[in-house]
């Protein structure tokens, strides 16, 4: 996990045109070490505080870091408690991933094209904007009963809930992206004979990409947040359902274990999106600063 911290988008090599001297390379290495030390150090301090707080208060309701670590080990490899949760981590991560990414990609698949069109076509904006802003504030949790009626008990209801949560950030950021593109670019393209779907493919979409990637990052965060609600829909496996089971069984070590794994999954997904976005957006001034 510590290696991923080094991937924070700090200095990009492209921003320094001259060949790096030994001194500069050393300085950059020192800067990297510092970033890792700070990035990893802070959560370690938090864990220490957590450990002390549990020890000092003597609470039995909140597990200590050690208990969570044991649970994490058993969840991953088994051999400690040997119960229904031992060595099942990959199944649960995999099931949750299919739901999170299923809902997320569905949201991107619908949200990005719709956002591009709403951003560009006034009629569509006037038609849909009020409805979107009316539906948007409705909490995803409120959709839970209806989603179970629409899609029945099972993964489809979970995917739908994740989709709902991921859809609006993607849609709104795409619309915002289109609206903030310099109109001159559209005019220049139109003048050169670009129109219709070619305009969307060649100009509107790439020009809006910086904002679209922002939307995707926010949306993937929501998607992982919503997996717990999503898996309240009566699915037997998945990290959300593990947390729900832990709650029912009063096993807070299991709950915290599930929380940490969701956090790590979201973190890794975010890193992946950032790496892709840094590659795709090399041209964008605010992305190679």
């Amino acid at each position, binding site marked *: 996990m510590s290696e991923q911290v080094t991937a924070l988008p700090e200095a990009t090599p492209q921003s320094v045109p001259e060949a790096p001297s030994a001194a500069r390379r050393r300085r950059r290495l020192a800067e990297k070490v510092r970033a890792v030390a700070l990035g990893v150090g802070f959560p370690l301090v938090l864990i220490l505080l957590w450990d002390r707080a549990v020890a000092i208060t003597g609470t039995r309701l909140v597990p200590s870091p050690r208990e969570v670590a044991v649970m994490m080990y058993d969840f991953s490899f088994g051999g400690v408690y040997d119960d229904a949760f031992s060595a099942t981590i990959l199944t649960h991560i995999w099931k949750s991933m299919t739901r999170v990414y299923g809902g997320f990609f569905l949201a991107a698949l619908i949200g990005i094209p719709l956002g591009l069109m709403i951003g560009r076509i006034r009629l569509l904006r006037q038609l849909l904007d009020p409805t979107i802003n009316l539906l948007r504030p409705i909490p995803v949790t409120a959709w839970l009963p209806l989603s179970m009626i629409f899609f029945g008990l099972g993964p489809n209801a979970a995917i739908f809930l994740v989709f709902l949560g991921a859809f609006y950030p993607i849609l709104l950021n795409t619309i915002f992206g289109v609206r903030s593109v310099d109109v001159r670019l559209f005019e*220049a393209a139109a003048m050169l004979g670009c*129109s219709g779907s*070619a305009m969307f493919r060649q100009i509107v979409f790439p020009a809006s*990409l910086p904002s679209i990637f922002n939307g995707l990052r926010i949306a993937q965060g929501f998607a992982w947040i919503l997996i717990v609600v999503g898996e309240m829909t009566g699915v037997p496996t998945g990290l959300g359902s593990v947390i729900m089971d832990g709650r029912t069984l009063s096993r807070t070590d299991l709950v915290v274990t599930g929380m940490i794994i969701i956090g790590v999954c979201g973190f890794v997904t975010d890193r992946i999106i950032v790496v892709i976005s840094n590659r795709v957006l090399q*041209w964008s*001034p605010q992305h190679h600063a």
Partner: protein
Amino acid sequence: MRSAERPHVVIRGVSKRFQVGDGEVEALARIDATIERGAFVCLIGASGCGKSTLLRVVAGFEEPTAGEVLVEGKPVTAPGSDRGMVFQDYALFPWMTVRQNIGFGPRQRQLPRKEVEDIADEFVKLVGLERAAIRASSRAA
């Protein structure tokens, strides 16, 4: 009648009013002009008198409030590659390389790839940008 004998561009009674807040601003008031094929025409006037607005109407970016513009006898309804306008600030596509920017227009005309590349190379060479040709245009400056 052959096209060379009739005016290439006809601006007929073009007016343009913009909504500004609660009021209206009249940018163009019944402009008439005819331009022959191959003519070099200068539009001269004080700042804010409507030169750019007229140009934008001819380019098809703005719809006139009244009147019409004909090019080759056909009314202008939208921008098109038969009319070119050079913007006051450059309008480059920052996600494309210098060569892709140059080749964008030819590519819209569905020219074969080889031809698009030849055209791009020709103009890259013309302005001496060979060394920056494959760089993103946002960084070529």
